[in-house]
């Protein structure tokens, strides 16, 4: 039962000045590290401690923002250590209640292609596109095979941040099948809104136009961030993704892209969302079976 717990080192506690505590679960990324961060931050949220302002689970770590006038950072660390012992020991049979979402993506689109061509001087390989580069260094015979690999298995939202609403997504496949790419040598100063990017082992959708260092692979027609809360999926929150959401990136053609854009513009677009349950033990034992079942739930 605790096989996955044994793989993780003890968490490392660091003061981020007096207003933050940073806790590193592990230096490398794994589903286990993220599940542990989610479990501890979930328990911390339920404790409702006075002086805790923001609880931010991150990929293999988490960050807590506090008001040091009400809570001494050292006292918070004591409490977090206690939670690591109680809530941080994961039972692989404990199901995570979440949702699975269909996220359409137009790969190799004209907009991100135009952007990435403008910043070739900041890239590892100025001679090829980001997709071509990613496919090559990950051993795919061509771009199409890498896109197939990205769309074949869903991703877990392991962190929100950088800018409001940006989901960091980690594919739910064994490490040897993970795609990994470096970030740009020097970050771009421009990225289109809704660009689909990849950096390290993470896929993201950029919520707003701005700087960015991830490889640009495509663009999503639907937003992940809606300040005006015009779309029904944003009625409760300006950010759509939530931690532990499962996102399935689905390759679409230009026609579907344009149709979806029209729906978004008209305020009619809704993500395809289904309730889902994730059992860590099952996922670790047989990811393909779990992913197949999740996709069946999503599209049936």
């Amino acid at each position, binding site marked *: 039962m605790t096989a996955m717990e044994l793989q993780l080192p003890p968490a490392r506690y*660091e*003061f*981020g*000045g*007096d*207003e*933050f505590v*940073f806790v*590193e679960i*592990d*230096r*490398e*990324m794994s589903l286990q590290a993220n599940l542990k961060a989610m479990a501890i931050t979930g328990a911390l949220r339920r404790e409702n401690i006075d002086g805790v*302002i*923001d*609880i*931010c*689970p*991150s*990929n*293999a*770590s*988490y*960050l807590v*923002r506090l008001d*040091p*006038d009400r809570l*001494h*950072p*050292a006292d918070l660390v004591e409490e977090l250590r206690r939670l690591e012992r109680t809530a941080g020991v994961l039972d692989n049979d404990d199901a995570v209640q979440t949702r699975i979402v269909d996220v359409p993506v137009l790969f190799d689109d004209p907009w991100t292609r135009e952007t990435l061509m403008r910043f070739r001087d900041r890239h590892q390989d100025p001679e090829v596109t980001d997709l071509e580069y990613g496919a090559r260094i990950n051993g795919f015979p061509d771009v199409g095979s890498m896109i197939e690999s990205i769309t074949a298995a869903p991703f877990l939202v392991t*962190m*929100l*941040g*950088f*800018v*409001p*609403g940006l989901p*960091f997504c980690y594919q739910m496949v064994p*490490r040897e099948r*993970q795609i*990994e*790419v*470096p*970030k740009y*040598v*020097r970050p771009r100063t421009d990225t289109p809104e809704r660009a689909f990017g990849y*950096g*390290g*082992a*993470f896929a993201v959708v950029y*919520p*707003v136009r*701005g700087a960015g*260092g991830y490889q640009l692979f495509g663009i999503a027609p639907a937003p992940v*961030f809606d*300040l005006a809360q015009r779309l029904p999926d944003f009625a409760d*929150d*300006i*950010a759509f993704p939530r*931690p532990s959401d499962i996102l399935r990136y689905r390759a679409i053609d230009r026609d579907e892209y344009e149709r979806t854009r029209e729906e978004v513009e008209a305020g009619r677009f809704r993500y395809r969302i289904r309730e889902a349950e994730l059992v860590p033990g099952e996922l670790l034992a047989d990811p393909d079976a779990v992913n197949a079942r999740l996709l069946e739930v999503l599209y049936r």
Partner: protein
Amino acid sequence: MNTLNVRKSGLSTTVQDSGRDGQYAIGMPPSGAMDQYSLAVGNMLVGNPDGAAALEATYIGPELEFTDSRSVAVTGADVGVTVNDEPAQTWQTLRLSAGDVLAVQQVRAGARPYIAISGGVDVPLYLGSRSTYMLTGIGGFEGRALADGDRVPLGAPESAVPPAGTEVPAELRPELPDSTVLRLVVGLCAYRLTERALESFLDTEWKVTKDADRVGYRLRGGSLEFVEREQPFGAGSDQANVVDLGYPVGSVQVPGGDEPIVLLNDAVTGGGYATIGTVISVDRDRMAQARTGGSVHFEQVEINAAVVARQERRARLEKARAAVATA
């Protein structure tokens, strides 16, 4: 509703209050006044509740025409102020009437003057705060810096406003040195730097570059070595990269090894660069007044010193409050 007419907006003037809490987890930084001490004292001088929204100017202040009677105080950076072209005092309650024009000039020392107005700047609350966050265009006045011709809404003043001429004594105003000492709690991913690099980071007098704004300050003056390692899975191949993680406000990262960035109130909330320590919250007030061309250096402190510094700032604010109350 009464408004303030912006005749000239200044270089970059935004509406700020004590900041926006509770949104960090979706990736939204707190924003808020960079120099919280100067904001708080400004509000005291005009009888506003703590945390009322004021204007934060940058290097060159705005020219503002009033449409009703208000108390005003200019705090923060050392700057010339006029009312109807007549010199006026900073760190003092000024009384302005309809038609009066307050001009805040170019700063002489420091970087950010604050203009507190009785009744406060009454832009709509967004997620609990009136602070401007320009990256996504939220909060403040239409989510952006003020522009010439804007009409900024003001709230109803409190009934008890300190009399004109009320002053905060010089010893309760911030020092505005050319070289700023920033106390830093070393940690986070400091293990990525060699011991020598960390020492050199603390010994270096860093120059503030022109890339120094509410998002962060980029510094130059040295170069720092990372401990060579095989990069952990998921981090990306550069030695400065870590598995993307949360960044504290005030944290320092060194992307290329030679250009430390101190992240500030409007910064990104996370990313994949190694962070090596965090400027203590009180010293973000000092950082706010550090300017391009000036220099900063970092002094390592332990967490308890950071908490004590915070208590000292509170005590200082209470002294300022007492000075205002007995005037």
